[in-house]
């Protein structure tokens, strides 16, 4: 276990998690403390149906269906759906790193099979989605014109991260439940000595983990903060200003009739 391992996989893990959580909190606090609103009422939710549950439904609908992208080009919709669904399933699989599958009645063999077939498929989906989004960003002149360094950085970082994940899943097949999982659970429990578990892993596993930590720390500061935005966007999750009724048209017509 080298000093570099301790710095990256010991201190680095804490640092990335602290930066991720604190950064997201700072961002959310910034939005919430910005009290002034320009909008006159949401664009998405009819006032007759407005309320906390309809706003929540709208947020969930947008997260899972990307339905608003129907008006844009197909590669954006297809690429977004493939990447996001792929990455969510893959991330769900990564939970096995902190929650041992046995605790929820999944045998080690079954977990391995799920990781290989379900995790692998979702990784491929995510990777193809990223390729589509990247090709679109480069290939569509107007989208290229509005792209910033942050846009490319996020895409490239994710492509390397997911690409490495695929290589590990299909080619290298490390015994990460005995190494990465033990390291993660140990360090999260406050045992820096658990770094020794990951220190025996090969360079590609280490690179995948290190990039994942870098990604976590980067999320609050650039475009990757966007999922959090949906929960605070005034036009989607905001409060309606004018929400009154037209159900009274019938009674009104009687009232104001001579």
């Amino acid at each position, binding site marked *: 276990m080298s000093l570099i391992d301790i710095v990256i996989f010991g201190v680095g893990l804490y640092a990335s998690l602290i930066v991720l959580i604190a950064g997201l909190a700072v961002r959310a606090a910034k939005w919430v403390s910005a009290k002034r609103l320009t909008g006159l009422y949401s664009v*998405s939710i009819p006032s007759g149906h407005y309320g906390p549950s309809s706003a929540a439904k709208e947020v969930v609908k947008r997260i899972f269906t990307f339905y608003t992208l129907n008006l844009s080009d197909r590669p954006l919709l297809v690429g977004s759906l493939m990447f996001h669904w792929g990455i969510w399933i893959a991330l769900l699989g990564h939970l096995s790193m902190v929650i041992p599958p046995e605790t929820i009645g999944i045998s080690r063999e079954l977990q391995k099979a799920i990781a290989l077939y379900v995790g692998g498929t979702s990784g491929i989906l995510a990777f193809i989605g990223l390729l589509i989004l990247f090709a679109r960003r480069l290939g569509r002149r107007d989208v290229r*014109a509005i792209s910033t360094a942050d846009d490319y950085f996020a895409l490239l970082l994710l492509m390397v991260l997911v690409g490495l994940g695929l290589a590990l899943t299909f080619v290298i097949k490390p015994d990460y439940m005995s190494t990465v999982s033990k390291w993660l659970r140990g360090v999260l429990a406050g045992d820096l000595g658990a770094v020794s578990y990951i220190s025996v892993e090969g360079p590609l596993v280490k690179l995948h983990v290190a990039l994942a930590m870098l990604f976590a720390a980067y999320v609050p500061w650039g475009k990757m903060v966007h999922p959090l935005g*949906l929960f*605070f966007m005034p*036009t989607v999750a905001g409060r309606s200003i004018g929400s009154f009724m037209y159900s009274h048209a019938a009674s009104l017509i009687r009232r104001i*009739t001579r």
Partner: protein
Amino acid sequence: MEHGKAELVLGDTSHIKPHWASPSQIQKLHERVGLKLPEDQKAHFYRRLLEEAARNRNVAMALDVCVHCGACLDACHTYQTTRDIYNSPVGRAELVRRLVKSNRMSGKLLGRLVGAERPTDEYIERIATYYYQCNECRRCGEVCPFGIDQADLTRTVRMVLYESGIAAKYIATVIDNVERTGNNLGLPPKAIAKTLEFAKDSIREEKGIDVKVKLDEPAHALLLPPSADLFTNIDTLKGYILFLNIVGVDFTFSTKMIELANFGLFMDERHMKYIGDMVVKTATELGVKAVIAGECGHGWRAFKNYTAVELEKRGIATLHIFHLVVEAIKSGAIKLDPERNGDVVYTFQDSCNYARGGDLTEEPRFIMRHVVKNFVESPNNREKTWCCGGGGGLLTDELLRLRIEYAKKWYEDAIAVGAGHVVRACAICKAQLNHTIPHLNKAYNRQITYSGLMDLVYRALVP
């Protein structure tokens, strides 16, 4: 350059701008809402923009959350028809983002290398030019996966520009008119009375019925049309009058406030509220029990979200004329004969502010199905509707070339469904169609006509 004749160069509309209001005109408006022209325009604009970027949630989130996916590029008719990236939702926002960036450490150190721009006179005029090419139609807000409504940014930027002394002359003039006279056109009470007399005579002649029209008299309801209905959309006006008479609604107009349109929405929220408050004051003084809105998209947005809320607080009911028409049809209070609108194929195209956040999409369709024989939906209907191209206070001669281009999207929608007549229930839409349809008909070799919806109700009504 001659008005409206500015050459349209695909990919660059930076030279197409409205005439700007004079400092004295802006000063007069400022005084009305308690503002004062700043001594240093540039410094004020920069300071206030940074302030809005920090304190206004719509602005802060538009700048923070956008992932530059470009979905809004496909949704925005101003970009689709001009191909100037800065004449697009994300492009306009980028102009603002660059200024905001210049106040950050990276921008201070590296300047343009990281895309930061300092607030020079030229740069501020560039921002003003592009933000006054936006129709504020909110189609971008509808398509953005995060709901970023760039029209909110447009309104905020225009507000800061106005505070700094920059505004379109046309919008400033209209606001001044309505705040002085109670209508956008500056019509004096006598002219209003004469127009109403003309409408009465015309109804008697065409429908054989004597209608009652009150002006500044006590009544149960105040009818609030856009003033354009008294001038260019007389058939719409006759539609309101005849319908309300047939169903027996006791209504009045007011010479003090005969304006549903609210151009404050296009320049500064303080003026939007000022104009809304004029309606509240008039309705309260008249002692009416209800205020009925006429055909005006953006006016409906300001009315529904501000004015109506204030009216309802005072126990005055509010609704749109379409709500009453729907109710009258359902209850059998009126008789309609669709034959009277002929065999033409009609398409109803939603006005942006009815369809996007206006909750008024099904009522007009219900009415359409009862007043015409051949009604077809346009491909981009309801919340997907294309802007007429005149919204946001762009209805000026000097922007005509741009407006003709913007109008191609809805016009092509009408062609796609074989419509011979486009119905748009909004005063701005009708003015924009009036200006652009002759050009488009010539360019596409068609004879498409247009009208409001109450015009068709008027024709179909059987007294």
